[in-house]
Structure formats: C-alpha cells, structure tokens
C-alpha cells in the first residue's frame, strides 16, 4: 500500500511526538510511524526528572546548566548546542506544564526540583536543585502528556509499522518503506520531510536498562547506506542498574540523598569525587563502581556488585518521591529499600552518539556538514552533539523536547516549499526481498542464540573499561557474528504478527550499530567521558578534541572522518568534581 504525508515522523517517543506536534503546528500534514503502540516507547521509562534552570528552589542560571552540560560531556559537547539547549529547555519545561504535565509542586505552587548528577551551581561549587520531576515517573508523564496532545490535535498514527528503508535518491530523502506487523504487508510512504526519532540501541549489551525494542534500527539503516554515525564510541552505562537485571534505578535516588556503599559500608564516592560525591556524573560513578569490585570491595557471595543505600532516608520520602524504583527493588529482588540497601551495578543505558545533525535536526552526510534535504533526526537516535562524551542525567528528556521541537519546526518549514517526489514501483523491492529471504530461508542459526552471543561480546569487550586488545577481540567476534547472521532461520513463516521475523530483522540492525561502536572505540586512542581506555588513560585534546564520523564503505570496510568540536566560552579543562 502507498501513503503520503508532508512530514513523517519515525518513532513515537518524546522526540517523535514533540516534533510531530510542532510540525503539525507549522501547518504540515503529519503522520507518525511507530513500531509500537503509542505510549509504549521507552521515554516512558525515564524516571528522575528534566533539568532546567527554573530557579524554583534556589538560584540557578542557564549559563550554569550550559557549563555543567559541557563539562559533563568532557568538552566534546558542541557549545552552540549546549547554549541553545540550556536556554530553550526552560521554556520547554514551562510549555510541558501548560500542556498539563503533572509536575510535583513546591509549597509555593511552583514546579518542584531536585538535585541530580553533575548539575551544579556557580560552575561546580555544589549540587543544585535543577531537575523538575513528577515522582520517579517523569518520563512516563512526558510521554503521556505529549500523546494526549497528539490525541487532542488528531494526528495520524501508523502503529506497529517497522521501518525497513529510508528512500534516498540523488542525495535527497523521498520516503520510507515499512513492514506492517498486523498483516505482513510492505507499505511505501512518500514524504516531503522525514524526522527520525526512533531511539537508542541498548539491547546490544547483555545488561541494559533499555526496552527489548531498542535495537538501533534507523541508525543501522542509514549506516548501511554509507552515511556516517557520529561519536558511537561514547555509550553511557548508568551506575544504578538493579543487579543483576539492569533495570534502571533513578539517579534521583541519590539526588534525594541515597549513598553508594562497598562491602565495608564505605561511601566510596568520597574518594573519587570529593565535592559532589555520589552526584558525580554517570561515567565517573560507573567507573568507580567497577574499580571497587575489581579491587575486591564488592558485595555479595561473588563480590560482584555494590549497594545503593536509602535506609537513612525517611520512608515517606521513598514512598512519595521514589515509589516506582522501590517497587522494582521489591518485586524483582525482594528488597525493601526503606529497610535494606539495594544491589546495583552499571547498566547499558544511553547512546551519546548517533545520526549527526545540525542545530535544527537536519541530517548531515559527511565531514563538511553537507545536509540531506528533507531528512531530520532528533532525540537519542541523533547526535547534535549536546551530550558530548557523557550525558548528564535529565538532559535526555530536555534533549527530546528542545531538539524535537526544532526538528518539527524545521521539517514543517521545509515541507512548505517542497514537492513530493514520484517513487518508482521498484523502490520497495530490496526491502521486500530482504523480508522474504529471512522468512523463507531455512538457516540453522537461531536469532536468539546469535543475539545472546552478540550481547555477551559487547558486554565483555565494549563496556565501561576498554583496551586495544579487548576491542580488537570484539571486532573479530563481530565479524564472525555477521557471517553467522547470513545463516539464520525463523520458524514462523506466517504473514500476521510475525514477531519472530521482526526480531531477526532487528538483530541485523544491532550488529551494524555494534560494529560502529566497537570500531569507533578501537579508533579513539584516548580516554574521554564514557570512553575509558585503560591503555590510553588520559584525555588527549591535542589529537582527539574532535567528533568521530564512522562510515561503512561498499564491501563492508569501516572508515573514519572527523568533525571539529564547536568550542566557545568554556575552555577545555581538567574534569574534577
């Protein structure tokens, strides 16, 4: 079946819905194509808050937020993006409130704010109350509120449609090919502008906070076409994943006063970040936890994790401000956090890297910032680059609404003066072939076994600490996994709700983004933010203060180009907290 819309958004999470609303406001006929049902997207799992210098609890300024974001990103953050972000996220939070988002309130009636990792006052002096929150379900409330607005404005949704291809001809984006889960039918979509907002790829790792569905689909689709991905070596491990499942426990727990402890009960973060301690940025906390375990100070019979201690907090604080994470600890571990500390270890959480874009979400094709007309990206799938080498907590939600809005505005404006392109009937051919081949081939490799092997490879060779040797082994294993992927087979040969087939397709995407990640990590011989190379432990601004662009050439060879970091008023300095 064929469809056409002025603007088509891929993904119905925070950035997708924000950009859809803004594109519609700009007068465009908008449709959202999502592989899930609306409100199922993983924005809903974000917990702690959305950082904005509202100054409701104490003095705060967007310049402080801008500085924290840049320092948190270990100076790989583009400073123009950070400035726009820190300013615009204030109005974005106010706008969410006007849309009806039920933020928690202060006695004054204003939006309540809490402390969060790496967010400070006066350029690093002490932690600041900046994260606007709705208990520990802020992401859930953002997703619900944005979807409510989509209902109000009657936007069109194609639910449970998996994008198989982005049609790019002559350097211009013309449409999409998608697979409808309910029928197995292949659809083509013509669009004047496409906004990619399909989220991250945490499922490449064994232990992750991410949904099963976060498999890097659109990153991989563009990467296969020879387009670049930016800064893929920078992948965030959130310190407090519920051990051993990896389910997220918000940093807001430490924002409310929670403390990380090792086997002797020591508050070990005092040694690593004497000023802000447990509220140091995530990359530093995750490394500290790994070091504690490595040096034999881990907890449990295998000494393989540490503890998040909330027992000194009033039970009422936990019940009111952290109800969901208390429930997770209770259900999945049988631990009552008001009485017992909670076992935690870092969990694969967030891609700082992704599809390179301009400040208006326009997708960039190369190292000279050539724009692909009609193609936009926003949110975790994109790299603008706001988060640099390490994202601060709460800045993902801010990113979604600030850069989702910009992409929506820009796409609608572009669509106004653009025409639809005619698509040849063969345009869906390669996708159709790929689906049919996967469905019908009787390969001996199982999708689940191969995916498990991939996740173990990424966990072992490309997680918190990295070395040349580990990464090279990871690259070798990936090569084998790619080879085995050619021989996968699915049991389900049906047309309708063939989720097994969909998982086989998704595994192919995971392999691509894993390759981009491992090779980028192997290539960058320094330590910066979330990319910690034990063989190159220092940050090397002379050689590496630049963004990686990783490309896959025809024949599969991986190669690199670079883009300068946009610097500004904050000179790169040593990063201590």
């Amino acid at each position, binding site marked *: 079946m064929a469809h056409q819309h002025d603007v088509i958004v891929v993904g119905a999470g925070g950035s997708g819905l924000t950009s859809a609303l803004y594109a519609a406001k700009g007068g465009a006929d908008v449709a959202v194509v999502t592989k*899930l049902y609306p409100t199922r*997207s993983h924005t809903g799992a974000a917990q702690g808050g959305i950082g904005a210098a509202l100054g409701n609890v104490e003095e705060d300024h967007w310049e402080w937020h801008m500085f924290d974001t840049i320092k948190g990103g270990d100076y790989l953050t583009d400073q123009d993006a950070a400035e726009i972000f820190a300013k615009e996220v204030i109005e974005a939070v106010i706008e969410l409130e006007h*849309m009806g988002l039920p933020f928690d*309130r202060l006695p004054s009636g204003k939006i309540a704010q809490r402390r969060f990792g790496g967010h400070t006052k006066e350029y690093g002096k002490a932690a600041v109350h900046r994260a606007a929150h709705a208990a520990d*379900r802020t992401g859930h409330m953002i997703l*619900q509120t944005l979807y409510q607005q989509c209902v109000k404005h009657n936007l069109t949704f194609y639910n449970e449609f998996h994008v198989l291809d982005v049609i790019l001809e002559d350097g211009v984006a013309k449409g999409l090919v998608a697979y409808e889960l309910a029928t197995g039918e292949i659809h083509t979509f013509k669009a004047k502008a496409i906004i990619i907002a399909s989220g991250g790829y945490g499922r490449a790792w064994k232990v992750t906070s991410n*949904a099963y569905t976060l498999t890097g689909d659109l990153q991989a689709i563009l990467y296969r076409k020879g387009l670049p991905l930016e800064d893929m070596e920078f992948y965030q491990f959130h310190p407090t994943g519920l051990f051993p499942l990896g389910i997220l426990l918000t940093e807001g727990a430490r924002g409310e006063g929670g403390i990380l402890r090792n086997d002797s009960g020591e508050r070990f973060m005092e040694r690593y970040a004497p000023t802000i301690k447990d509220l140091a940025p995530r990359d530093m906390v995750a490394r500290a936890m790994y070091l504690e375990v490595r040096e034999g100070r881990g907890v449990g019979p295998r000494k393989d994790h540490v503890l998040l201690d909330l027992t000194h907090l009033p039970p009422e604080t936990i019940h009111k401000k952290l109800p969901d994470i208390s429930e997770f600890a209770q259900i999945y571990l049988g631990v009552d956090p008001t009485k017992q500390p909670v076992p935690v270890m870092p969990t694969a959480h967030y891609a700082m890297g992704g599809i390179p874009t301009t400040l208006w979400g326009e997708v960039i094709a190369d190292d000279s910032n050539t724009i692909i007309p009609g193609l936009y990206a926003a949110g975790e799938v994109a790299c603008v680059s706001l988060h640099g080498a390490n994202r601060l907590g709460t800045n993902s939600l801010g990113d979604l609404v600030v850069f989702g809005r910009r992409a929506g505005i820009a796409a609608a404006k572009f669509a106004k003066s653009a025409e639809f392109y005619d698509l040849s009937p063969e345009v869906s051919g390669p996708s159709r072939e790929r689906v049919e081949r996967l469905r019908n081939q009787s390969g001996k490799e199982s999708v689940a076994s191969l995916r498990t092997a991939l996740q173990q490879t990424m966990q072992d060779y490309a997680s918190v600490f990295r070395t040349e040797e580990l990464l090279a082994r990871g690259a070798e294993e990936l090569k084998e996994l790619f080879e085995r992927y050619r021989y996968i087979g699915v049991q389900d040969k049906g047309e309708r709700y063939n989720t*097994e087939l969909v998982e086989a397709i998704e595994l192919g995407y995971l392999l691509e983004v894993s390759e981009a990640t491992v090779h980028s990590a192997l290539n960058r011989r320094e330590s910066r933010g979330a990319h910690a190379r034990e063989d190159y432990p220092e940050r090397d601004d002379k050689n590496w203060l630049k963004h990686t662009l990783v490309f896959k050439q025809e024949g599969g060879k991986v190669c690199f180009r670079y883009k300068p970091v946009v610097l500004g008023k904050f000179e790169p300095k040593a990063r201590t907290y």
Partner: protein
Amino acid sequence: MQVTLKILRYDPNGAAKPHWQTYQVESEPMDRVLDLLHKIKYFQDGTLAFRRSCGHGICGSDAMLINGRNRLACKALVKDLGPSITVEPIRGLPVKKDLVVDMDPFFDAYRAVKPYLINDEPPPERERLQSPEDREIFDASTKCILCAACTTSCPVFWVNGTYVGPAAIVQAHRFIFDSRDRGARERFQALGASTGVWRCRTAYNCTEACPREIPVTQAIEEVKRAILFDKF
C-alpha cells in the same frame, strides 16, 4: 524448577479454533512470566505471538490473563504463581493472534473522554501554580500506563464492549480533578451517557487487576459523585 505453561493460542485466519498448548520450561523462582514466554518463543516455538517492550511494568504492552487474573507478564513472578501457569489473552478485545489483542477499541474509549488538559485561558508566562495538596488529589490516576488490565477484567465491559471502561474513566478522573483543567462538563457528556460511568457495578475487578495499584473503583466512584452533585 520445571514449570508447565498452558497458553491459549489462536490465529483467527487459520483453520484451528482457539486451543490450549502446553510447554515445559526450565525456570528460576525469580523469573518473570515474560522470561518464560521468551524461552518458549526463542527455543521451542517461534510462532508464539505476544507483545512486550520495556520488561519492567512501565510501558503497558504485556497485560495478559495469568492464572485467572489480569497481570503484566513482566511483573508476574514464577515464585508467586507456582509450577503450573496458564496464560490467556486479556478478555473483551478481539484476539489478533495468540496473546495479541486489538487495542483499537480500547484507545477509542480513551479518546472519547478527551484525555488532555482543557483550559482555554491564556497561560501565564511561567508555570501555572498548583498547590501540592491539589496535585495530590489526582496523583494515583497519573500512574496509568494504558495497559488495559482493568478494562478487560470488567464483567460489564465483557458483556457490553461499548462501555468506556475503567481505564478511560481513570484518565478522565486525572483531568477532572486537576485544578488546572476546565473541561469537566465536556467530559461529562461521554461519562454521563448510557455507555459511561453508570454502567459500573462496582465489582472491584479493575482495582484488583491494576498493576500500578491505582484505586480504580474509587476513581470511578469519585467521577460518579462529581457528575451527580454537579461538582464542576
């Protein structure tokens, strides 16, 4: 331990009628039912269809009838269910395949209650003010993840699918009792109609089924009272 999983399977386009299929799965007490479904799908029978996404009770994809009660498969643990577990699709919505149901009627009911803030007054430059006490009144209703566990456990909904159902009423409650909202009367049209709140017979199934521990029946009663006493 070995767990016996009995799953109600059905493909409306196939020849077979709905039928039970039994699987033996090796599992740990702390495994989620979702883990068992994955083990079956990945290593025994790739044709089994079910929805899931976040895997920890936040996205609302995997509501199912498990041992006779609506639950999320990702929040139901083997240790609480025992070695013999039955899984069926949630009731009252058309089955598309196995545990996958058509969610469109559910979302139609959601839309009918105008589930968005209605307030045409020009907003202030900064946030609208709301006291913590006013915010608290509708707190529980904001937890709803639209999983449909409540609506599809309601005997009134089973008999008459035109009833908007508990989930839609919870969504309406979330706005009616929000001090910033001005749309109560608009919503009362849908809620006061013959397919609205008066269909509720306070069976409390919805409250028991809610995986977010929202006092659903109480919310419905509060909406009834608001309409009855013309509170807004």
